[in-house]
């Protein structure tokens, strides 16, 4: 008798039964189908047995925005692995300065907007801005000062570009347990907006303008001073991120993306851009005051950098055999040209495969197939960008600067040194700087 399947799962079970019956019949004889099938024992189908597990309920949230599998646990962590001395002053006021992305779980080249690292100059305060009320003022050394609504900005020709943003705090040291601690204040996303150069042309930027001040709308009105020549090159006034509006932690409704510059220069909640004719040390710039030329030269912008995200600290290789060592490479000066991987502590280097076309000032995923023999190894990656700059070891960097590499040495400026991971014979992975 036909009975109507009461659910999709029973329907699937029923059709599986029919297929099983056909297959069983076919194995008996080619003419079996023409005869009345004998009652066959129910086939055991392990895959459907497993699917007796509950289904994911279709809640309004699942319909509206989607949710990831509850089996995926990867999350951001705040101030993870940072020395207490650098966080005490924020914690005392209940603030968080840095929220690190779980790079150890990252796949591909972009961070989901929900997992993108974030940092704020004064802590965790994130303004709740109504985009209908928010405006961007462009004035100073321009012929035509203008004030733009968010709707105005979307009328300009737009760009969508992949760029990394990285905080100067992204400086690996021997105390870090994993790549989230050592490299988690760096992320890559697709940013959509109007080029700052387009707005400056609209406003008639004057020749004598050499710097501009970008100011946010948060409670401290954090501001930075940046050079006009870089602004005309590739700076974006961004309202979109990974296919949707910016998130509040990323500067909703509009922020600056200053490719290659330290994270703090990517002014969030952007409300004012003023073209000026001299550098001025602003609210967000003061911590960047330097005493030595070298520290200043190597600060503010990022050189070529790469990191192995698998296998990385706190992970474990379950058995010897083939693995794809993979990770991310980027440069604040241009596109990645090459990535090399060493599995013998830097004695020999093997060229890695680049996944896709490397983009300017953006993350590139690399991979290198490696047959782990079960022995102890130190693995590391290094990248060369299309300006010819190469990522140094700590030792190489120290030597070039006339300094000495000690365990407590913090490389001056933005730290783009090579990160080693140690693999023990039991497959466990630990910090190679330790």
């Amino acid at each position, binding site marked *: 008798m036909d009975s109507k399947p009461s659910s999709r799962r029973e329907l699937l079970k029923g059709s599986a039964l029919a297929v099983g019956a056909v297959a069983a019949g076919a194995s008996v004889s080619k003419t079996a189908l023409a005869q009345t099938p004998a009652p066959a024992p129910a086939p055991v189908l392990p895959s459907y047995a497993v699917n007796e597990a509950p289904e994911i309920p279709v809640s309004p949230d699942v319909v509206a925005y989607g949710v990831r599998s509850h089996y995926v646990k990867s999350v951001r962590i705040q101030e993870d692995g940072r020395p207490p*001395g650098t966080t*005490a*002053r*924020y*914690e*005392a*006021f209940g603030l968080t300065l840095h929220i690190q992305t779980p790079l150890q779980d990252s796949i591909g080249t972009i961070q989901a907007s929900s997992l993108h690292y974030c940092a704020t100059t*004064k802590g965790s305060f994130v303004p709740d801005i109504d985009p209908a009320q928010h*405006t961007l*003022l462009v*004035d100073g050394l321009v012929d035509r000062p*203008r*004030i*733009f609504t968010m709707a105005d900005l979307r*009328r*300009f*020709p737009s760009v969508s570009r992949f760029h990394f943003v990285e905080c100067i705090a992204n400086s690996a040291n021997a105390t870090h347990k994993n790549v989230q601690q050592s490299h988690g204040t760096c992320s890559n996303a697709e940013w959509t907006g109007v080029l700052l150069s387009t707005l400056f*042309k*609209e406003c008639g930027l004057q020749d004598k303008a050499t710097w501009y001040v970008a100011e946010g709308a948060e*409670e*401290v*009105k954090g*501001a930075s001073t940046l*050079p006009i*020549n*870089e602004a005309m090159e*590739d700076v974006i006034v961004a309202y979109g991120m990974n296919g949707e509006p910016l998130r509040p932690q990323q500067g909703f409704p509009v922020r600056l993306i200053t490719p290659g510059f330290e994270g703090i220069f990517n002014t969030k909640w952007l409300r*004012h851009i*003023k073209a*000026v004719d*001299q*550098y*001025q*040390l*602003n*609210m967000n710039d*003061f911590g*960047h*005051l*330097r*005493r*030595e*030329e*070298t520290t*200043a*030269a*190597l600060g*503010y*912008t990022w050189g*070529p950098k790469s990191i192995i995200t698998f296998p990385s600290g706190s992970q474990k290789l379950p058995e010897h055999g083939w693995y794809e060592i993979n990770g991310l490479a980027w440069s604040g*000066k*241009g596109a990645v040209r090459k990535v090399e991987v060493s599995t013998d502590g830097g004695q020999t280097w093997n060229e890695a495969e680049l996944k896709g076309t490397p983009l300017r000032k953006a993350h590139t995923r690399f991979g290198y197939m490696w047959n782990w023999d079960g022995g102890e190894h130190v693995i590391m990656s290094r990248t060369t960008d299309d*300006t*010819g*700059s*190469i990522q140094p070891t700590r030792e190489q*960097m120290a030597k*070039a600067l006339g300094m000495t590499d000690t365990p407590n040495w913090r490389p001056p*400026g933005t730290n*783009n040194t090579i990160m080693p991971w140690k693999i023990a014979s039991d497959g466990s992975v630990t910090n190679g700087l330790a």
Partner: protein
Amino acid sequence: MGSLRIVPILLLLASPALAQTYGIGKVPTAAQLAQGITISPTGAGLPRGHGTAAEGAKLFVEKNCVACHGPAGAGGVTAAPNLVGNKGTGPDDDVWKRVNGGEAPGSLPILAPDATIVWDFINRGMPLGNEGTLKPDEVYALTAYLFALDKIIPEDKVLDQDNLAQIKMPIGTEWVRVPDWKPGAPRMTGYPY
């Protein structure tokens, strides 16, 4: 036929990509322009106002600055910077090694290359939780108070929009300018990394 030939040229001329401007956005009103609070190291952009160290000392208590920074700008909670620095006399003649509650050096006001930076920082960022509420006279007064504590100005000096930028800061020339950035240029000449 002849008129059809010029169509592509007309299309080209009408192409927005070639247009210098789009006529988008509004001319800001005086009130909207006044929302800009960025000031120059030359003092340009400073609002009119004045204040003295005595007035600032009073405000330092009234605005509860003492709660974090301690009485007279020192000995407050660990989390808040000590505002009284090493003036640069004697064996510790180095503003970069200022007394700073055990924190890394680099705090205002002693380390500011320009007096305007201190004014700007107070104006934008203080008091914590009530940012943007100080009036210009109050910011001049608090700046004068901190400068007097650090013996950068005499206690009776009246700070205003005209003389603030003229103050000689103790750091002198012991700091470096930001690099002369050019797109695509190496971070440091001869540096391969």
